[in-house]
């Protein structure tokens, strides 16, 4: 094999591998990416029960309840237009999880319409607002910004 040919073969092989990776990735992304839902979207057009999705919204004030087993909590996540999704979570609440604050829950919807969360992502920084919550109404966004931002005088 001449140097030129070898170079060509290498380039072709590398391209095939990279294109293969790209195709495989896009195929997997279409199938496996867990989709993000706002409460109103989930209420309107719920995902299949059991499908892994994310739900993001505000923890409804006054909705947090501890169940008698001592490890499970329930609360409701709200968004715009009075939509409301009940959530159940067994585990230790994240440090910055408070009522009236933003949360992203990872988990799945059960047959009864309750969102069973495996994981809760609350903000980790006083300035951090989950990016997914940016679509909320201005009033809520302003409220949240006020609560979550510590600014300088």
């Amino acid at each position: 094999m001449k140097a030129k040919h070898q170079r060509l073969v290498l380039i072709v092989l590398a391209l095939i591998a990279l294109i293969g990776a790209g195709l495989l990735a896009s195929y997997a992304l279409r199938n496996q990416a867990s989709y993000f839902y706002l409460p109103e979207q989930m209420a309107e057009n719920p995902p299949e029960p059991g499908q892994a999705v994310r739900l993001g919204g505000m923890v409804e004030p006054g909705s947090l309840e501890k169940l008698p087993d001592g490890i499970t909590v329930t609360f409701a996540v709200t968004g715009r237009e009075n939509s409301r999704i009940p959530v159940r979570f067994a585990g230790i609440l994240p440090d910055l999880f408070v009522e009236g604050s933003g949360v992203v829950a990872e988990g799945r919807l059960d047959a009864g319409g309750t969102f069973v969360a495996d994981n809760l992502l609350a903000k980790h920084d006083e300035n951090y607002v989950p990016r997914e919550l940016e679509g909320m109404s201005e009033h809520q966004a302003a409220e949240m910004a006020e609560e979550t931002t510590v600014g300088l005088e």
Partner: protein
Amino acid sequence: MIAELGHAALWMAAALAVLQLGAGALGIRVGEGAGIAVLSRPAAILQGALAAFAFGALLWVFAITDLSVKLVAANSHSMKPMVFKLSGAWGNHEGSMLLWVTVMALAGALIAAVERRLPERTMQATLAAQGFVALGFYAFLLLSSNPLERLPIPAAEGQGLNPLLQDIGLAFHPPTLYFGYVGLSVAFSFAVGAMLTRSVTPDFARAMRPWVLGAWVLLTLGITAGSYWAYYELGWGGWWFWDPVENASLMPWLAATALLHSVSVLASRDALRVWTIMLGVIAFSMSMLGTFLVRSGVLTSVHAFAVDPERGSFILALLAIYIGGALLLFALRANSISEGERFSVASREGALVFNNVMLSAILAVVLLGTLYPLLTEAFDVRVSVGPPYFNPVSAIFALPMLAVMAVGPLLRWRRDSFGRISKELALIAALIVAGLIFFALFEGVAILPLMGLALAIALGVASFLPLRGRNIRRLPISVWGMIVAHFGIAVALFGMASESAFSNEKLAALEVGQSTQVGPWEVKLDSIAPVAGPNWTAIEGRMLASYKGGAPAEIAPQSRNFWAPPQQTTESVLLTRWNGQLYAVMGSEADDGRWQLRLWWKPFVTLIWYGGMLMALGGVLAIIGRVRRDLKRRSIRRKIDGRRADMEDLR
């Protein structure tokens, strides 16, 4: 006064970067030795000193908590422990950018001071590229985010640093990663310099190699430390979340790993020239992209701090200029760089090419998965991509790569045959099969962890096979480096696979005096007590943990309250044994007086980070070996030159 001096130093450093760029450009045009071009080296050295002075000034105002400086008032507090006051200097946006440019300037100064292998013209072009990259960051700091800006009226007290950042691991892992990123920027400058003067030679690869190795070592350490930090500080018991911020550090690491291997091929065999240059450009692109993702907040992340979308667009603009420019240059010059030596598929180079292609494929997969949410958002669809995508898709490329990694070091350079190493191949294959059968006997082990465990065993043994039949005492240090680094990968892989295959988890609510089981452990809640620290108070759960009925050890996870800023954190406890870790997190009190407790037993989980450290150690050994060999080569050359001169004198 110190702050103003620092600011002035920053302006002068920026001016020197302009000089460096101009001198280099002139050097390329007119040829070496042309007037102003000789200023490249001194300019680079002085620029490094001035940037270091500016960063020193920032450290100083943080150390004395000078509350008339805006950045200090926003990120520090007079009551913080000294180490966190200092780390506060780079635990924010402006400070971290200043750290970046300082390290970059110091790297430029170091090259200017010691590098003598490259032709002077290439050196000037490299320093010009370095000055050009640094200039963007200076502009950024001086025009839009001056870290040393004063407040009109000094603040009475600082805002404090996020408690999650008040952790010794976090104080040092971001700068470690940064140093790695900057090392890649040096590699980038070398690549651009070599492209500009069309001198892609083994000498160029030898000059670039220690920087790539150094960057790789620091990235490896930074990722390892970051993973451990997330593991114990977030209290989720996980060590890798495929979070955009983590991916942002993984992508440059993948590119640097590929570059590291192709640079070796170029240095010792003079092959893969174009590919190496390309990787040099890509590796730095990935570190810029990582900075952009982390700093701009365009993607949701659990550990992105100091986020600012407006500054994100500045970084994006820099990214476009540098990478676009480099790729354009690459397109113009790639044709005139010939590919160098040939080699056969069954050779060390062949294996390394395979490794490079697989690493690039993994990089593509991670990049697509990380950016996918951004792409879909353009169509107003919100998506988050997680482990169900990343784990299997990256494994498809990682597993064959790891298998070839076991074989590659056994092959000879240039031309070899698999027949020659058939015994070793049979051993590796037998180990994989035996591992698969052995670990399949355990119940409920999923397919990926199973393959990971088997491959880890085979790779662990195979990494020492290159020692066979060689005199161990005379083996070059850099070969030891390779062996240790490859063994480190096997160790880390075993830890990862074992953690995902064999972890036990238990969630319980316990009254004082009650106990619960997790895996082989029995944990008893002994008492609940209030405790206080320098800037926090906490409730501590004192527990007795006993392994298989043995003597109990005391563990005490806390739930902490910080008051500046007011925030609650959980302090998990890790009980380390040779065969794994018990991980305990305490939650809040239930209404009936029981306490939430989350426990994990994670067999061999610590191997993940020991493996990472071994990999970094391997990299350090490789640097030592290479530098020593280069020094030796240099002194021999000097001796020969000296003799030749003597001979001529005699004549």
